């Protein structure tokens, strides 16, 4: 009914767009659009692995599901699975904190002081270009097989990334705001706390998000060498026994942890710190109706 009325009223050419917009807003359609590709992927996987008929190397989805349940159950062949997850998360968080503190400090300096920027510029690109595996072996030789290796390797990878993001932000602080702060004789403390950091918060939040997403992938690679604990160790263990089911299951567990942290922690933080960027009250009221 609505569609028919729209077609008679709307000028030619806008009808389609209105129709698509309406479809997009339909919640059932929106969920279907998200779910269908995943279901299709699993179905194809199932058909293919079933046909290959070697579940140990080509695990079917039901086997993977059982492996996931085993992991969630907590008791694995190599001890408590939660210990492995916690070991990995601890290293990831440590690396994240190190790179965030270093990256933000150097990034602000590089963005505000030309000399610092020139000093770190080339180094940052070199650090970013080094494959993470190279870091892992270098650190493993330099400091021996300890927790520090994956932490250092991931930090070496994330820090330059955060420096680039933060420096970009620090460079774009509007001149007129800095002049205002100068005219009102703002102290260094005021400038950092009330001007630089709040301005940089959106940059920091997005840097943190990207860094975490990248970090959770790299940390597992970094753990493969020598360590007795962690998700990387698990993957190496099952690879050694040529059992692929648990490897995929561990991968999925890490994906889920990544998504939960992103949506549950970084998302709300980013929204909260960007409150002041909200829409004007009048616009919000009008927009809220639609």
């Amino acid at each position: 009914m609505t569609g028919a009325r729209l077609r008679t009223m709307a000028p030619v050419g806008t009808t389609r767009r209105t129709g698509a917009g309406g479809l997009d807003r339909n919640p059932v359609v929106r969920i279907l659009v998200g779910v269908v590709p995943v279901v299709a992927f699993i179905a194809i996987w199932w058909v293919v692995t079933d046909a290959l008929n070697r579940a140990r190397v080509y695990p079917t989805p039901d086997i993977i599901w059982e492996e996931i349940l085993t992991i969630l159950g907590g008791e694995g062949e190599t001890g408590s699975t939660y210990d492995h997850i916690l070991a990995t998360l601890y290293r990831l968080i440590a690396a994240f904190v190190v790179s965030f503190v270093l990256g933000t400090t150097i990034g602000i300096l590089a963005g505000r002081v030309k000399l610092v920027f020139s000093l770190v510029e080339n180094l940052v690109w070199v650090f970013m270009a080094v494959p993470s595996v190279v870091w892992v072996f270098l650190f493993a030789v330099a400091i021996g097989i300890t927790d520090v290796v994956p932490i250092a390797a991931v930090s070496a990878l994330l820090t330059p990334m955060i420096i680039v993001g933060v420096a970009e932000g620090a460079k774009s602080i509007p001149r007129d705001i800095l002049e205002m702060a100068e005219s009102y004789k703002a102290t260094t403390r005021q400038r950092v706390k009330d001007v630089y950091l709040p301005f940089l918060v959106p940059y920091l939040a997005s840097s943190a998000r990207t860094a975490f997403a990248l970090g959770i992938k790299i940390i597992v690679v970094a753990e493969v060498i020598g360590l007795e604990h962690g998700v990387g160790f698990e993957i190496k263990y099952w690879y050694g026994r040529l059992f692929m089911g648990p490897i995929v299951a561990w991968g999925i567990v890490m994906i889920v942890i990544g998504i939960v942290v992103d949506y549950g922690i970084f998302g709300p933080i980013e929204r909260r710190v960007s409150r002041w960027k909200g829409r004007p009250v009048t616009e919000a009221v009008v927009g809220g109706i639609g």
Partner: protein
Amino acid sequence: MTAVASGGATARPADLKHDIDLKNVSLVFPRPDGDGMLPVYENFNLQVERGSFTILLGPSGCGKSTLLNIIDGVLRPTSADTLKVLGKDLREDPSVTRQCAYVFQNARLLKWKTLRGNVEFGLRGLNVQPEARWAELMDKYFGVVGLSDFTHYYPHQVSGGMQQRASIVRAWVNEPQILLMDEPFSHLDEITAAELRRELIRLWTQDEQRRTIVFVTHDISEAVQLGERIIMLTPRPAEICYEQVVDLPWPRDSADERAFEIEKTLRKVFAEKAGVRV
């Protein structure tokens, strides 16, 4: 009398006649194209009487804002014989510029702070003492410009006129000896601008001891509406080419015959001396 703020009375010797005293001030900038130097001021002189409303009127780009920055201590001239604000040499005692407060062309509020937070930023920067008075000062000046109900709003939630009002409060709340205003109403629509001009005069005249205002504009009507003394500047290197005292009571009516006559004269001189037709 509101002498407590900013150390008030002690900062200005009682017998001081000129709050701003510049003699033979020169300022050269490197040209943007790197081709030599650009003289902005050459042996420039200016005395501003305490408690006066002085207008600096000049064509765009002649360095009016630059002059305010020199007075505010954020820009050092290339050379100067005298560079005194409130009787103190800026080169020896730059802290005296804490007695100056600036109102910019655009409001320049921190978007992540409420209007009140922005005003507090200025109070903290200029180190207004005692801190216990801040709340009272803010309530007072937000009240005068009619923003009492909006102090907890963020800048993006209020109109451009209200943002500029808040920036005027940020300057005035420090109860500074000198107010530097750089075309503060030029970005507003005419009705809002007229309203803010009336509020500015009300703010200024309500104090027992009037603050010194240096107000930059290129708008001749605005100059005649507000100023006691209008100083006309030429294009670079800027020189004072004409002075006009406007001895009319506020609020001034643009339809007033005397104001109209002054405006007419100024327009004529402006076209001749500043080489600008307005």
